[in-house]
């Protein structure tokens, strides 16, 4: 397992380099002068001589690869630049917003796993019945309905009409409930589909027939024998869904005025705060990569076959 872990971590180095390269390139593919992009609106009215000086100060006159190397060195040291709007270090800004996004993505994940697995198991066990059909329809709606719309509909019903929950903001579990459901619902749909397919497949296997013929009760066979083996593909999907959750969080944070990284990123794009855009994109991408690594490793821990491939 240790060798496998080391191999996986090493394998990530080129991907991380590539991600950093893409994020670095954002400044160069953005239309206009990179120094203007870095300065944002404050570049307006600056003379071309002053811009040239600033270009030199930022090191933007150096060769592209030299600049990338120095960017990389800064990133490794935790220096993601300075936000144009707030003049705060980008890392400080991102870190102050990250707990809110993590809380949202984490609770959405919980919602997704619970709802997704319950629907998936019910659909597989009662395959072909009305329960199955309802579960399939709910799962289809989950992948088709935009998260920002389901968020708004939840807000309309539970906050604005019924007054049960706060419409927006941050602070207590009551604030978290609607955004978590809105984001979690679409991932729940994926998890339900995979759980259903995987459990149906597992229920067909010989060991299930053997367990049944031994006279074990159907629920013991389903839950103890079949479900346990059916869970492996589900674990992978849960990991992959985390990316979707982070993406969904960006949209949902805007709907519920949730003070997370996603909303900050969108505001930064609107106000052309390039260092903050780059820093938040890099940060979220790295979080996503690390989460996927953890999921892969836990998958390998659960399934010895993976480690020896």
């Amino acid at each position, binding site marked *: 397992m240790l060798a496998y872990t080391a191999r996986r971590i090493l394998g990530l180095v080129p*991907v991380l380099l590539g*991600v950093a390269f893409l994020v670095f*390139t954002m400044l160069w593919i953005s239309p206009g002068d990179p120094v203007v992009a870095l300065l944002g609106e404050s570049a307006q009215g600056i003379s071309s001589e002053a811009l040239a000086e600033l270009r030199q100060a930022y090191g933007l006159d150096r060769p592209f690869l030299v600049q990338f190397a120095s960017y990389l060195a800064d990133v490794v040291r935790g220096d993601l630049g300075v936000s144009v709007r707030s003049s705060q270090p980008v890392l400080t800004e991102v870190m102050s917003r990250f707990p809110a996004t993590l809380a949202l993505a984490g609770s959405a994940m919980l919602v997704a796993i619970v709802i997704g697995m319950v629907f998936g198991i019910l659909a597989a066990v009662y395959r072909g019945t009305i329960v199955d059909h309802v579960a399939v329809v709910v799962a289809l709606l989950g992948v088709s*309905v*935009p998260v920002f719309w389901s968020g708004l509909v939840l807000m*309309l019903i539970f906050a604005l*009409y019924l007054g049960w929950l706060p419409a927006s903001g941050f602070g207590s579990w009551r604030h978290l409930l609607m955004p978590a459901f809105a984001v979690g619902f679409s991932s729940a749909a994926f998890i339900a589909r995979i759980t259903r397919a995987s459990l149906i497949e597992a229920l067909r296997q010989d060991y299930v027939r053997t367990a049944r013929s031994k006279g074990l009760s159907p629920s013991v066979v389903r839950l103890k024998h079949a479900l346990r083996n059916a869970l492996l593909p589900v674990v992978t999907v849960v990991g992959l869904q985390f990316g979707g959750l982070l993406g969904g969080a960006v949209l949902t944070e805007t709907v519920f005025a949730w003070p997370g990284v996603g909303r900050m990123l969108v505001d930064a794009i*609107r106000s052309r705060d390039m260092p903050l855009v780059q820093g938040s994109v890099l940060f*979220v991408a790295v979080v996503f990569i690390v989460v996927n690594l953890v999921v892969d490793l836990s998958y390998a821990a659960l399934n010895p076959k993976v480690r020896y491939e």
Partner: protein
Amino acid sequence: MSDRRPVPPSLRRFWRNRAAVAGLVVVVVLVAVAVAAPLLAPYAPEAQNLRERLRPPSGAHWFGTDEFGRDVLSRVLYGARISLLTGLVPVLSGLLVGTAIGLVAGYYGGRLDNLLMRVMDVLLAFPSLLLALAVVGALGPGLVNAVIAVAIVAVPGYARLARSVVIATREEEFVQAARALGARDPRLLLKHVLPTTLGPLSVQATLGIGFAILSMAGLSFLGLGVQPPTADWGEMLARGRRFLPDSAWLLIFPGAAISLTVLAFNLFGDGLRDALDPRD
């Protein structure tokens, strides 16, 4: 004597799948609505009437009016144009670029394959909406840039799929035979290898349209895609939410339109996949 050709089994399987057929029907209706929007819409989508602002659904305005007194039904109908277009264009561009990358990588293998696939890995290392936001963040908000962003997000999926099909095909006898007969690489790739990728790629593309429509609506909702006053469902939602809870119709109709469209493409795509790949 009958000269009717037998119906292919995949087509028969598709027609037996009621959900898939329903999806196809909705897609066809949506395309018809998009094409005929000027004939169907009771008002011009951008025509303002400030005396009729924020009116609930009525006989004159079936879906109500917005804060400028514009007819929501007309805007939803015209919105089908933008939605279908912004769903199709990124998918087709992503498909074109992705397939080309996959063909070259899979056919030539070696270092080129390795390099191209590592680039695809890097693109896949981003959550898809984050990648789209990064591209829009670099290029700036707007319809064209959002379409480019969603297309870039789509590329690695098609590249990987095309590559895997090509690798399986490369050593097939008909390709070997064509090569032995002196066919050059471009001809081999386009005439013999490319056709084998079309089935799986068309399934992925159909499912991709739904996803592209969702992504574009999301970007427009964030104010980074389609810009006002163009009638677009995502943009309508972004503005409509400011008038909740009193004007709920501004939320219900555009949102339902997005959901129905994406659902239809998903049902159709799922049906295509099941019909072409009967193993499941």
